[in-house]
């Protein structure tokens, strides 16, 4: 059996990192949470601007994402930092995390004020980091890996090399009974017929169609604008257009390849936990990179494969983000941000299969503890997709 060394959690899930998480329940407690985390190396913070004045689906999505972020297997223990009057209940967050068997504590700013809340929180996190450091990596099967597939700053090279290479990794992991998440609903518009073919379940198709329609409806409202004096489509970025992408359909056909040929076993809401069944899960997220990655990480992704044509520094506070480019120029200009260069495929100097195996090897090294460039550079992005108007 092929294995890697990961952190086996009490619920049977496996992390590739062993972070202590400082989790603000609301924007109002995010500053204190950041200051607690910065005082204790070894902790991470999921700083966000949601948590209050939200209703209905928007509130539910924020709550679900915060809970599931804390339950990601890369997290060893959690300090929830609450304000006291917010809509997302910090007490409930702590209780739910504890009920899943994960150590969790709570500090409320309205009980102490800023200075004492930081002092008390820092003392708690310091002990949690010490305790977490005693957990050792153990040999675990590759089937326990959950990969999130993302693309950002796409250009012509993404669909020709980086995305197909990531698709190879999806296929390799699927053979080993692992799980893969493909997100960015907008960037599946125009490629849905190719995904429908891989769904066995009619209700799955219906949910997926509804997800797509929401993004199409939003797109149609504002189809084009003048940006830098050029009339460009709004549902792809000006950088996509400069990089040679013309329409959303073209971008989508290049993007959906990140899921390889893996059978689709689930369609998930934003931040919803994936099931135990191996295969590919589609998650409803925007194409906005950090929000999409946060959704997949809340869904359980422990490693993120992020392709980029034009280059981006994006990382994540909870999961290592491996950045992959098929653009030779980007690999040169942004070498400090790029973990894997697969431009050789475009020039016929390497096959897709060869590159896929090399990338899978890098994924395993990262799962075993090798740091990604985004981790080394402290790129701790985190952002929750907000789907309603705040009151």
């Amino acid at each position, binding site marked *: 059996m092929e294995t890697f060394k990961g952190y086996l959690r009490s619920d049977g899930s496996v992390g590739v990192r062993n972070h202590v998480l400082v989790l603000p329940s609301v924007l109002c407690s995010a500053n204190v949470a950041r200051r607690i985390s910065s005082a204790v190396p070894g902790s991470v913070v999921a700083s966000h601007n949601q948590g209050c004045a939200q209703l209905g689906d928007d509130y539910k999505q924020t709550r679900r994402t915060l809970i599931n972020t804390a339950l990601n297997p890369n997290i060893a223990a959690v300090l929830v930092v609450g304000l006291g009057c917010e809509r997302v209940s910090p007490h409930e967050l702590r209780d739910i995390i504890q009920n899943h068997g994960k150590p969790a504590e709570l500090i409320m700013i309205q009980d102490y004020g800023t200075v004492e809340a930081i002092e008390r929180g820092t003392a708690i996190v310091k002990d949690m980091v010490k305790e977490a450091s005693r957990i050792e990596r153990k040999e675990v099967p590759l089937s326990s890996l959950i990969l999130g597939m993302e693309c950002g700053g796409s250009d012509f*090279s993404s669909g020709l090399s980086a995305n197909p290479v990531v698709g190879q990794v999806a296929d390799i992991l699927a053979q080993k009974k692992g799980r893969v998440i493909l997100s960015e609903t907008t960037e599946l518009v*125009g490629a849905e017929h190719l995904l429908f073919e891989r769904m066995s379940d009619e209700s799955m198709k219906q949910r997926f169609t509804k997800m797509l329609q929401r993004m199409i409806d939003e797109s149609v409202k504002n189809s084009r604008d003048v940006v830098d004096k050029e009339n460009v*489509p709004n549902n792809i970025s000006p950088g996509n257009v*400069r990089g040679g992408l*013309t*329409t*959303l*359909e*073209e971008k989508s056909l290049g993007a959906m390849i990140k899921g390889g040929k893996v059978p689709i076993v689930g369609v998930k809401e934003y931040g919803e936990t994936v099931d135990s069944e191996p295969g590919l899960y589609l998650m409803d997220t925007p194409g906005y990179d950090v929000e999409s990655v946060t959704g997949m990480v809340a869904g359980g992704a422990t490693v993120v494969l992020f392709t980029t044509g034009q280059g981006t520094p994006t990382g994540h506070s909870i999961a290592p983000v491996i950045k992959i480019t098929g653009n030779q120029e980007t690999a040169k200009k942004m070498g400090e941000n790029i973990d894997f260069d697969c431009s050789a495929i475009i020039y016929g100097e390497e096959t897709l299969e060869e590159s896929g195996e090399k990338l899978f090897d890098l994924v395993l090294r990262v799962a075993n503890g090798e740091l990604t460039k985004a981790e080394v550079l402290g790129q701790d992005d985190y952002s929750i997709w907000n789907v309603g108007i705040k009151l």
Partner: protein
Amino acid sequence: MKQAILLSVNDNVATVLERVGEGEEIQVKGVSQVETIVAKDEIPSGHKVAVRDIRKRERIIKYDNKIGVATADISTGQHVHVQNVVSERTEINEGGERA
């Protein structure tokens, strides 16, 4: 000679791998036999060139799939991009109708 990649025999556009100047020859490689076309526009690196004549309202095909609709007649060797293509799924023509 400058090069372009054709991804499927049914595609009517190919991707150029470096900037091509107007009047320069482009070798189109990939799934079909190598053919040479002449660029009728300047084409930036990574952008698409028409490998055959495309009529207004005809679909643009890449990856063996439709990626949009031509809003003008496009002849072989022309730059195919946002100035002469719209999304069939999400864009609306200037006349207000769905492309």
